[in-house]
């Protein structure tokens, strides 16, 4: 369970988040939706201990991320880009991450296989396409076979095949009782993937519920999204 409680983030005079609260539950895929600049990435970065909140808490189970005893085996994270240095090979990148958690080398080959990068594993990350970079990011997130996945814009840069593949993967994770939290500004891609929806706009949660609850009166998730984020009526 991920519990976000009243997060406030100020940067200089700008208020990035003004009291964001929601939960992401086990066995479900939770979609954090909002336009660019709504505060999705900031929320995820605070959750992962990369940014500090001005106030409020973000907990994994009952502890903040930075207090986790075994972070890689608890939370798999993917943020923007590949998260890898362009001069390293994909395999070398995964190897150092695996070492940080004491994982065996064989696990690196397993995740390369899962994300379909086995043939590109010896290529430098600088030569990867956007989609391959996302796959490498996902491989990194899956290394520790974590209970929880936190993914920032996972379908960005993926081709239709890739989107279908990641959807299946995330549904399987949720079906086995794990927690998936992802952010996106792409509504169509998300409607078929998520169980729960949290819509954020200008640093505030404007809707929070199951996919049906949030879509409800608007007909489609996309219509709901635009109505909620531009102030239109249902």
């Amino acid at each position: 369970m991920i519990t976000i409680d009243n997060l406030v983030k100020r940067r200089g005079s700008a208020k990035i988040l003004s009291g964001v609260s929601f939960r992401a539950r086990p066995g479900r895929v939770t979609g954090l939706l909002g336009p660019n600049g709504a505060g999705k990435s900031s929320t995820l970065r605070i959750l992962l201990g990369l940014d500090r909140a001005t106030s409020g808490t973000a907990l994994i189970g009952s502890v903040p991320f930075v207090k986790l005893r075994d972070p890689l085996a608890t939370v798999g994270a993917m943020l923007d880009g590949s998260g890898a240095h362009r001069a390293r090979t994909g395999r070398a990148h995964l190897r150092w991450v695996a070492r940080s958690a004491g994982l065996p080398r064989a696990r690196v080959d397993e995740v390369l296989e899962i994300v379909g990068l086995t043939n590109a594993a010896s290529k430098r990350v600088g030569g990867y396409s956007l989609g391959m970079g996302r796959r490498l990011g996902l491989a990194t997130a899956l290394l520790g076979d974590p209970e929880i996945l936190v993914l920032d814009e996972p379908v960005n840069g993926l081709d239709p095949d890739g989107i279908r593949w990641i959807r299946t993967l995330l549904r399987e994770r949720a079906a086995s009782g794990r927690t998936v939290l992802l952010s996106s500004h792409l509504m169509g891609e998300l409607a078929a993937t998520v169980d729960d929806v949290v819509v954020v706009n200008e640093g505030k949660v404007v809707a929070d519920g199951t996919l049906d609850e949030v879509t409800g009166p608007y007909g489609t998730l996309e219509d709901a999204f635009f109505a909620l984020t531009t102030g239109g009526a249902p």
Partner: protein
Amino acid sequence: MTVPQTTRTRGQEGARALAAELSKLVSLPATWLTLGGTLVVNLILAIAFTIAGLRGSTGTGSAPDIGLASIGYAQAGFVVLGVLAACSEYTGGQIRTTLTAMPRRALQFTAKHVALAIVVLPAAAITAASGVVLAAGVLGDAAAPVTSGRVAGALSGVTAYLALTTLISAAVGALARQTLAAVVVLLGYLFIAGPLLRDHVSAAKYLPDSAGVAMWFPPAGDAGAVTPVRGALLLMAWTAALMAVVVLGYRRWDM
């Protein structure tokens, strides 16, 4: 799945962080390019200094004096290595992978610097010895005689100096988070500001560069000079202080 379910201890966490940081350093091509390039440049400079030494009108110096003269320039390579080790984290968003894998930042920061020291110590020793061996080989009997104790002292002084300079550079790199800015500041200090201060301010002998040079070229016949041991202690203190200051910020910054 082959993921073992283990609960790790603090010591294990530190050992794994060190293994990860070592793996990062050795898998970065820039590490080997910088170290290799530095060795080659150092040898070329050492040849030049040795030839100049042979033609010198004031008589030929000893092999360590001539063979280590190039280190003053070759240290730039170690500065670059330290900065790259720190700043390469900010390429491709790697820092976010690093800090989600190793969220306890002070521990990760320490592991990174220990890993850097482990890689740099042998490289610094090889670089330092290369110039001295070359000078000794070329000069032969023409070199001023020197005790093996003096050679060993100078070599270990240079090795420690280069390693500490690399750590200082990594800390400055972590502070600047930008390769070019950090390299310019460090080289500007080592090659311009440092020498100027040394000539005009007597207290400058306690600054990192002068204290460091005293580790292998103790100024002769100056009662107030910094001895090699004191120089080493001073430079270690500077390194530890700088790392401590940087880690205070590093623990709090938004990445």
